[in-house]
């Protein structure tokens, strides 16, 4: 009713310029907030690219990818990424061997076996694992796990890839288990009922119906977990050491890409030198690897998504 809203019935329409302007200002303010984080990301990538570019003007990409030595501080420096990449992958593979099965089995237990009350207790406890600072994991590896390993294999180095793998594995269990559990729980109850109705046991329902139906989510959680393991820094810097060597022996000391970045940035590497720029080249490599893994997990999720009905 015109009278109730205070506008006389015969009044001409008012122009809405002022209100439009207000809406537009708010729109722009929100847009700038969204734009800021995007710009920061672009800025970081920009710095990575320009500094890496400076690096690759002095070291050819072929050398970078094929040289088997990483000795940036030597008189005759070598900049082959292989030892660092191998260190990262050695630890990521070890961590994956621990975290993927444990994480998946934990997820199956939480989703299919645990009652509501037990899950209510276990899930928060598991999430605490994700909340422990990674530096604590590093010291746990160095002071607890490594001595245990040396009891079994006395030749184990003080800094070794295996203890780092173990703690990184423990660290990424929550990532794997919680994402996998989400995927398992998203499988419709009707599918479980159908399988039970055919005389399947709980184990058969879980492993032959629910897990395959949730496979895309489970694989995505695996990729994300591995990607976290490759990017993990503090624990591996402390536990795995800083000896850039090309080895597949987990009892030896290795340096990962992340650990190199830490140790090189802690020292006073002068700006503009080749070892300063090498930081960015390694950072760029790391960024490309984790970026590709994220893309891969997105692709897996989209490609293999089961359309439940």
């Amino acid at each position, binding site marked *: 009713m015109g009278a109730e809203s205070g506008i006389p019935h015969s009044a001409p329409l008012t122009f809405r310029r002022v209100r439009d302007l207000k809406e537009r200002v708010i729109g722009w303010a929100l847009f700038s907030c969204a734009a800021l984080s995007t710009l920061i990301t672009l800025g970081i990538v920009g710095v990575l690219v320009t500094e890496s570019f400076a690096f690759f003007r002095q070291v050819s990409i072929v050398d970078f990818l094929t040289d088997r030595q990483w000795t940036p501080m030597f008189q005759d420096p070598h900049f082959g990424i292989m030892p660092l990449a191998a260190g990262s992958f050695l630890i990521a593979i070890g961590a994956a061997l621990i975290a993927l099965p444990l994480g998946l089995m934990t997820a199956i237990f939480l989703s299919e076996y645990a009652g509501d009350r037990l899950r209510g207790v276990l899930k928060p406890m598991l999430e605490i694992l994700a909340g422990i600072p990674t530096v604590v994991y590093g010291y746990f590896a160095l002071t607890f796990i490594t001595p245990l390993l040396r009891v079994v294999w006395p030749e184990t180095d003080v800094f070794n890839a295996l203890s780092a793998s173990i703690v990184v594995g423990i660290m990424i269990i929550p990532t794997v288990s919680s994402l996998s559990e989400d995927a398992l729980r998203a499988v419709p109850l009707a599918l479980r009922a159908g399988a039970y*109705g055919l*005389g399947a046991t709980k184990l058969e329902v879980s492993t032959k119906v629910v897990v395959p139906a949730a496979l895309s989510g489970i694989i995505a959680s695996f990729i994300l977990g591995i990607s976290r393991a490759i990017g993990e820094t503090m624990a591996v810097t402390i536990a795995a050491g800083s000896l850039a060597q090309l080895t597949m022996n987990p009892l030896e000391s290795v340096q990962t890409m992340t650990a190199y970045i830490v140790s090189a940035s802690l020292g006073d590497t002068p700006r503009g030198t080749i070892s300063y720029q090498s930081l960015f080249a390694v950072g760029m490599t790391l960024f490309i690897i984790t970026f590709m893994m994220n893309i891969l997990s997105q692709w897996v999720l989209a490609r293999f998504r089961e359309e439940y*009905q």
Partner: protein
Amino acid sequence: MATTHDIDTDGQDPALEARAVSVFYGDKQAVKEIDLVIPANKVVALIGPSGCGKSTLLRCFNRMNDLVAGARVEGEINFHGTNLYQDDVDPVEVRRRIGMVFQKPNPFPKSIYNNLAFGPKVNGFKGDLDGLVEESLKQAALWDEVHDRLSDSAYALSGGQQQRLCIARTLAVKPEIVLMDEPASALDPIATQRIEELIFELKKQYTIVIVTHNMQQAARISDYTAFLYMGELVEYGPTDLLFTNPSEERTEAYVTGRFG
């Protein structure tokens, strides 16, 4: 008290015999002391308004209620002289011998072939699996439509085909009894008709207990009908009798469409 008319079991042992079956969900009693004899090789329809307990009763017959948190069953259901709820009875074996088809088609996200093969495999079937798949699909009148694309996803089938696939999947386990929980309620009239024709064929070999909302459907396909209301069995007898000359006033009111 319920009115139960003569149930002619043709001199055979009944397929199932429920005695004083009650089901509780927490404090709520969904099924109240129902006695029901299911004759072998017949189709028995359970009808009644929503929430009358007919689906709950059906799920008692193969212990699917075990999977519902907070559900409790009292009374006994005899199957070949054994109470299904006896302590030492394995519910997994019960469900293999008494199969179930659900309201909404629920094929697994697997190929047509693997949907069929799942049941036999988990039950340790050793033999000609291909032959069993073909036989079951033929029994469910689906073979002609899918024989050249068994490796396609079951989700590529239409709703009606999916439901026949689910029936075939149940038959592949070779149950004695097939329980059907409103198997056609999510389907169009033509698909519904095909399911009904199928039920007609299947009763030659199987005992079928079907829950339905649709009274015409019950009248068309069943030999016996049980009318449930608010968790109680009101009347049970030959379908013709129940629909044309029921003894209970509530039955008459329901089948003539005065409520429900």
